[in-house]
């Protein structure tokens, strides 16, 4: 199972074994990583599962689609490496992925 590391805004790390096929958001929720609210449950409707993708992983994770990009515009402190974690599917190539969580979800 791919391992994903979530780093809270306060620096606390959570390493999670994620199932291939679920989203990075779902893997966080299932493993009780705090700081990802995911109010809409992964419908790309709310921007409360915002993460910053570690620079080394940006190419592999890829760019957001237009819908997600617009949502991110209005997340709390969006940056170049912002993604909605419900829109990133866990794949084998993402083993070792590191994402950081914002101070709060918008």
């Amino acid at each position, binding site marked *: 199972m791919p391992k994903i590391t979530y780093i809270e805004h306060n620096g606390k790390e959570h390493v999670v074994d994620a199932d291939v096929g679920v989203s990075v958001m779902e893997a966080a929720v299932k493993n*009780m990583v705090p700081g990802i609210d995911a109010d809409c449950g992964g419908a790309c409707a709310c921007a409360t599962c915002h993460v910053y993708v570690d620079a080394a992983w940006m190419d592999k994770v890829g760019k957001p689609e237009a819908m997600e990009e617009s949502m991110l515009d209005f997340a709390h402190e969006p940056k170049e490496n912002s993604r909605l974690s419900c829109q990133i599917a866990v794949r084998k190539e993402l083993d070792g992925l590191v994402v950081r969580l914002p101070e709060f979800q918008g």
Partner: protein
Amino acid sequence: MNGRAIIIGAGQAGAQAAQSMRQAGFAGEIVIFGEEPEPPYQRPPLSKGYLQGELDTERLYLRPLAFYDQLKIDLRLGVRVASIDRAAKAVATEKGETVSYDKLLIATGAPPRRLACQGADLAGIHYLRTIADSDALRPVLSEGGRIVIVGAGYIGLEAAASARKAGLEVTVLEMADRVLARVAGKEISAFYEKLHRDHGVDLRLGAALDHFEGEKAVAAAILKSGETIACKAVLVGVGAAPATALAEAADLRLANGVWTDERAQTSDPSIFAAGDCASHPSAIYDRRIRLESVPNAIEQAKVAGVNMAGGEARYDAVPWFWSDQFDVKLQTVGVSEGADETVIRGEPSTRRFSVWYFQRGRLIAVDAVNDPAAFAISKRLIGKSGLDAVKLADAGTDLKSLAF
């Protein structure tokens, strides 16, 4: 704060309130009673991805079971609460168990309104609210044939889209002269009517159902006009009614649902209510409203949870909703009822546009079709007056320049 909190209802609101109580420092017992066998789960996919077989049941769960253990939340599932005894501050379950409370939350939701016409109890007539409902409907989607959907609200239209995707013939019966009549303006209705017809849905507006016919299972829907529509199954989506029976029997104040103040407190200071079952005063709309939506359940339950834990929170969140049908995402901010002016931004034929609803010059709601930017920015603009309608209607204007 200590003592025991009881939450009736293991839906989105019940789960959130328990979590918020813990976050607010409540150290006492928390017991959640849920009628259904599953732990708290998300309902929106029941008419979409879950119905289409894209998700397994566990992926609907809001949190893993370990989460409730960790927060010492006692989930009692498959248990129905039969009554509330306010004098004794206790609830009784249907099995006869009595459990006392210091604080109580009513989060009983809003089950679907049921039809009472002739034939309404035939097999093959479905409703959609629970995992069990969606599980019962899913095999219908793989069997082929025609499904009749009664009601063109969100549930009916989302299910119609799912059924068409699965290859079923779909007839939607709507009594009103447009779809989504209760929740959206006529421009949005027209867009969704075209969307569904373009996808092969047989959409009947102004069509009143009279009764159903069939031996054991439903075989046809008969309209008031006399027309017979043969079908293999029926889905009824004619709205939901707040589950107020417990509150009513306990003599709590009701007002289109369980009456609550802005603290989510009912007419009994030890009892709170949140989610689809509760109405609350809205400062934005200057009237009492009751919302059936996930964001409302979450936000109102947060307020209830904080107050039940002895804190102080007030509910005045801007309502929002979403609906996915075919490849179109509708995101709504606010409540458009009572609008006296609308501004359309963008061209509906491009499948990306938004409708801005005003009342006496004040922005009260926005429906955004495939336009998350309009959705997101309007969350900040609801309740404001003085938006430049000409600039707004010009899709070339940067929306961010309108935020003030």
